[in-house]
């Protein structure tokens, strides 16, 4: 093969690989993703990753399950959550949490080990200087 043709072939191969990778990326990410949502926007029977704050005084244990309510970050609409699995250390009333699962009969059934608690925000409180 002459060099110019060789170069062209290489370019086509490289571009082909890039396109294949890009489409795999787009396809797999959209098919494997879950919708992120707020407690007030949940609909029955769909999977979500819901972000909200733990309602004060709502945390209870029932056997292995942890029961609590989460509300919108800036609102009052809340939804009861039933969750089993690992509970991160910072989890408690008022903390912002993310949990995956789906809404069934009005209760958000959390996926095992999907609970994430964000670090408390007291470290970025506005200074009163």
């Amino acid at each position, binding site marked *: 093969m002459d060099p110019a043709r060789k170069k062209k072939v290489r370019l086509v191969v490289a571009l082909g690989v890039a396109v294949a990778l890009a489409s795999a990326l787009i396809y797999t990410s959209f098919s494997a993703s879950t919708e992120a949502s707020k407690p007030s926007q949940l609909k029955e029977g769909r999977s979500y990753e819901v972000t909200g704050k733990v309602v004060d005084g709502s945390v209870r244990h029932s056997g292995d399950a942890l029961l609590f309510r989460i509300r919108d970050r800036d609102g009052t609409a809340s939804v009861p959550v039933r969750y089993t699995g690992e*509970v991160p250390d910072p989890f408690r009333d008022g903390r912002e949490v993310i949990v995956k699962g789906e809404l069934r009969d009005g209760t958000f059934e959390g996926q095992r080990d999907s*609970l994430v608690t964000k670090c408390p925000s007291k470290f970025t409180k506005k200074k009163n200087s």
Partner: protein
Amino acid sequence: MAGVGSACLYVALLGAVYAAGASLYGVRAGRSEFVVSGRRAIYCMAALLTFAMGLLEAAFLRSDFSFAVVAEGSSTDTPTFYKAAAMWATQDGSLLLWAFLLTVFASTVLYVTRRSLREIAPYATVVLAVIAGFFLLLMVGWENPFSTLSQVPAQGNGLNPLLRHPAMMIHPPMLYTGYVGFSIPFAFAIGALIARRTGADWIRATRRFSLVAWTFLGAGIMLGALWSYTELGWGGYWAWDPVENASLMPWLVGTAFIHSIMVQEKRGMLKVWNVSLICGTFALALLGTFLVRSGVLDSIHAFGASTIGVQFLVFIALVLVVSVVLILSRLPDLKSEARLDSLLSREAFFLLNNLVLLGLALVIFWGTFFPLISEALSGEKQSVGPPWFDRLATPLALVLVLLSGIGPLVAWRRITPRNLKRALLAPLVFTGIVLLVLVAFSNAGQSLPSLAMFCFVAFVLAVVAQEFWRGARARRVMTGEALPRALVRLAGRNRRRYGGYLVHAGIAVLFLGVAASSAFIQQKDVRLKPGQTARVGDYKLTYQRVTADLGADRAGTGAPISIGGVVKLRKGNEVRTLRPARNFYPARDASAGPIGPISQFFEGDANSEVDLRWGLRRDLWLAIRPDVSSLVPVARKLDMRLAGADTTTQARAVAALTEIYRRDPPPAAFRFIVSPFVAWIWIGGAIAVLGALVAVWPSPEARLRRVTSIYAARLGRELSRA
């Protein structure tokens, strides 16, 4: 004192403006005295910021709560070790750390290159001054670490219990050293572009800095993984959390960079590629710093919304625009000096490894920012989880490990298929034997990706061993040295090469640990009352008794209450006693309702102290979550009764409550994990760091050469004068 600190920042900002202006004027007008003075302004900034760091650190150690950051992030009852580390738990403090490290690095590189790179260094000074100026501006304008409180509180918030881990002392500074370190090659690359000196000079001058930055960033990431592994609820050593990803991306692109610059040094190729890589690395490093504190993405690291997100984005955009415009306008100067001779050449393999590394970085970038991408594309915020990352990263990691084995065997320019076959023969035979043994005598075949990884790791280790053996044998024949001595001498004389091989071996060992532990992890949650036993795999786990200690936290984090259990773990005849605990800290966060003097201890922050038994074959990991919810109603009643009581009485009440728990403990939740080969991740990481040190350390011969050349130059000058 705070006033002095603020003054340091203002003067340093002026210094940055001066350094940029003087260097620019000096190089444009050809007046070298201005270039020299601009460089010295950078030294001054380093001195000022070192002093400012000292001031702030002293304020933390003295618990001077007139400093807002000290009141925010420390307290008198925070142990001294964590007082010293509390500075980088605050946003303002970490900005100061960034700027401090940057000016120290910049001073070092400018001092080292003061007699060389006369065209490039002044522009690099400008770039470094602008970066330092940006961070100083952030501090002076928005997040001044020296801002004071008009009313000095008696007590501070204390360091977040989550951050009370020995790694807090070095993990953040190491990451920052890595991030900051990449600004040095970036600045010199930009300088080289502006000055149109696009040879390999800027690469040679900053190669060590790139390697040091790469090593620190990598070691910082490893340390973060180690920390995360010892905590409950952080998802093990790697959870594809946005902030973890944010630190990995610049490291991956930086890895590509330190490989491909060798091609430019040896063959004068890939010039556009190299400057693009370093610009990308630096932009990603800034992005990493930004993501930790921006709150843009949901992460366990996101410390609430930041006030400086917009400024950061503007700066990142500026870096990208300047880089792209400069690279495009200098394209004619960036022509390759050579062509790729063959696909079977070191150059081609470096390029291939670069593409895979970049592909991996792209995958991680896409997944990390998918919530923002999907919201822009479809209007719905969607996110991908760890399984998605695992699925895409696994094949790329496999290819990468394989390439790290083949690459070193392939010669520059071209290798004949016959020579390649000869070099590959022994490693391939070894890999084949390993494969047979694994399939025949272990259950490794249950997970195909892991089996493939084990084989590739064996291959890489065989290649590295073969390279060392061949080199040492040749040296022995030539010099007559004994084999061990020849081996040490060989590595000492070719540090870059053999250091690099060690890094490859270390990374391979690391992946051995990752593949084994991710595929063969056993994990179980059980709920036990004292005296009860549960069976987990081959292990029998007995919760023998409860422990409740006041002021005697074994981890030294200063926790007032520590509740845990003594657990006997039995496997055959092997018996171990584990003592996991959970530390309780008083709540200081009034946002979740009023805090009672007694109940604050049972409703506040708590942190698990995992009992972890390391082993070369497997780690045993046990966490306990005692259920103190039954104490809360009693504590609340006591809150009301003892509201006005003195602290001794209140402390007695807390002790009494703890005693109630100890006498009649409710069932506690345990999480037990058996993770095979995790220790090899850390061992591999340590080997890689060792290899990087070997590669970076100046060899005696090079030092001698440099000294001789300086003397020669001086002699030449004096002779010409005479």
